[in-house]
């Protein structure tokens, strides 16, 4: 408490002065963060088309939520699509990130250059990334098919990867993982470099094999980092949007629809703002439960080890 500016009791004038410091932040927070949260909560129980005045909206109770949980097949399919991409990212993308982090952590030359390169895709606009790959994937003019033909694989000569229901979602998932592994890599590498090297040296004296050291030293110490990376992966991937909109826009048909595109569709396409808010609430709740589960699991794991 000794760092506080005012040690003695505050008088009215200095209290007012203190409040002016947080006033701009408070106004922004109330207007753009707190009020919208109440608006979402309220609108979820109302029918409103986004055009007529707000006062004209109609209270309909929990009907939106009933519709989401009983009738909205498309919504749950979109959640499922994001779930598939998330599962792939959790396993493949993070495994790649861990392997790369372990490789660079071995004190290899040029480690910093690799770090700069691996983190390049994550800093770029998702729209740009999506549009580059959309063209590379193109059935007629795309580089991918051109390359496959040139190495003798003619099976896919006119395969439109993003327009085919069987491949579209996975084609997007691959790009999402390609774009995102740099995040996991950077965080995992920082975690690895934080581990005290004396632990490894002690294990070496005891004659431990590389694999044993990984299982008994690296893994237990890295659990909090693993959990952090998986929470970030889940939150980031479930809310995937930029890549979807630039590569497939939800198509072909509805095969690559994800929750954010569905929320937007009910807002802009169908002019059902209340329903869009209800979808947003349900989705936010799901994400919150997922990340709390992760934290629980991590605490349990750390206790057992």
């Amino acid at each position, binding site marked *: 408490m000794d760092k506080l500016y005012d040690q003695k009791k505050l008088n009215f004038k200095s209290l007012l002065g203190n409040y002016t410091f947080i006033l701009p932040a408070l106004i922004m927070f109330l207007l753009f963060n707190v009020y919208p949260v109440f608006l979402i909560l309220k609108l979820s129980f109302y029918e409103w088309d986004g055009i007529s005045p707000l006062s004209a909206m109609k209270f309909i109770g929990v009907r939106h939520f009933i519709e989401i949980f009983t009738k909205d097949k498309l919504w749950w399919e979109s959640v499922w699509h994001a779930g598939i991409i998330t599962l792939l990212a959790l396993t493949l993308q993070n495994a790649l990130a861990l392997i790369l982090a372990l490789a660079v952590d071995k004190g290899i030359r040029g480690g910093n250059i690799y770090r700069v390169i691996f983190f390049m895709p994550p*800093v770029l606009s998702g729209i740009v990334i999506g549009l580059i790959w959309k*063209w590379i994937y193109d059935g007629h003019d795309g580089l991918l098919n051109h390359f496959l033909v040139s190495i003798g694989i003619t099976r896919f000569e006119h395969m439109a990867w993003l327009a085919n229901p069987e491949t579209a979602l996975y084609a997007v998932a691959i790009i999402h993982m390609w774009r995102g592994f740099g995040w996991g890599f950077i965080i995992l590498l920082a975690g690895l470099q934080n581990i005290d090297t004396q632990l490894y040296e002690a294990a070496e004296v005891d004659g431990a094999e590389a694999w044993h050291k990984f299982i008994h030293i690296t893994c237990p110490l890295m659990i909090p980092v693993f959990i952090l990376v998986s929470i970030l992966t889940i939150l980031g991937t479930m809310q995937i949007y930029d890549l979807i909109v630039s590569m497939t826009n939800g198509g072909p048909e509805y095969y690559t629809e994800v929750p954010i595109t569905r929320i937007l569709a009910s807002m802009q396409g169908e002019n059902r703002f209340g329903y869009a808010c209800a979808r947003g609430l349900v989705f936010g709740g799901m994400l919150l439960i997922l990340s709390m589960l992760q934290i629980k699991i991590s605490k349990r794991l750390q206790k057992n080890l």
Partner: protein
Amino acid sequence: METYSKLEPKNNPFTTLGIHFFLVLVSITCLFPLLWMISSSLKTQETIFKDMSIIPRSFEIGNYATAIIKGEFGVAFINSFFYTFSVIIGVVFISSLAAFAFSRLNFPGKNILFYAFLAYMMIPLPGIFVAVYVLLHELGELSKQLFDVKIIGINTRSGFILSQIALNLSFAIYLLKTFFDNMPTELEDAARIDGCSKFGVYWHVALPLAKSALGVIVIFNSLTIWNEYLFASIIFNERGLMPLPVALMKFQGSHVTQYPVLMAGMTITIIPIVIVYLCMQKYIIKGITAGAVKG
């Protein structure tokens, strides 16, 4: 970087070679699409489908002129620059004032307010854009009634800038408050004894000392705002107001196969970010790892 080894007593030269081979392979997949984009931006509409080489046979710089003028990416570039700059200024000043207050000043409700900001940062709100759209719509109507013009609202620059400032405040306040909490107060105390006001201490002492934390905030916000698409796409429907990512989507929607010009527009979009990234990569990586290892 040190050359100690953690997993093996000695790195076998073949293992090292194998590791490098793997790392180089991954690096190529990271960079190749970008090189392909730049290379394609220099080809012509005729050669782009035939010339599959990475170094184009002729350099068609004209694509960039077409992109900037006819494709309206020049206007979009200025818009992006303006939005990014304005949001950063807003976030830096509003968050540093608040963080200084949370760290150094005393007032009733301080802790509750700080935790409210934190909670907002932690709780995922995927549908918030719907509500922000409604709010801006309301503010627009209100402003038309009060001032006869839309000073804020849907399809206004101020609407986008203010909503983006608000959405990025929490993280900046959290980062700066932690920074101020760990900062020694000797200099501030000296300034105080010399009769400096609270604002004077904040402005002349605390803010300059927080340069490194402010740097992290500036860099992260410039990446976020420059690349922002979702809010920009629902707020703007007038071509002249759109930032680069939205302009790119509009352009490819109406000129599907003009690949060279589209690729030129995309190259223009990433150039500033690549420059910022390469110059500031140490801070970016430091910012992520500091946050990650602590959290």
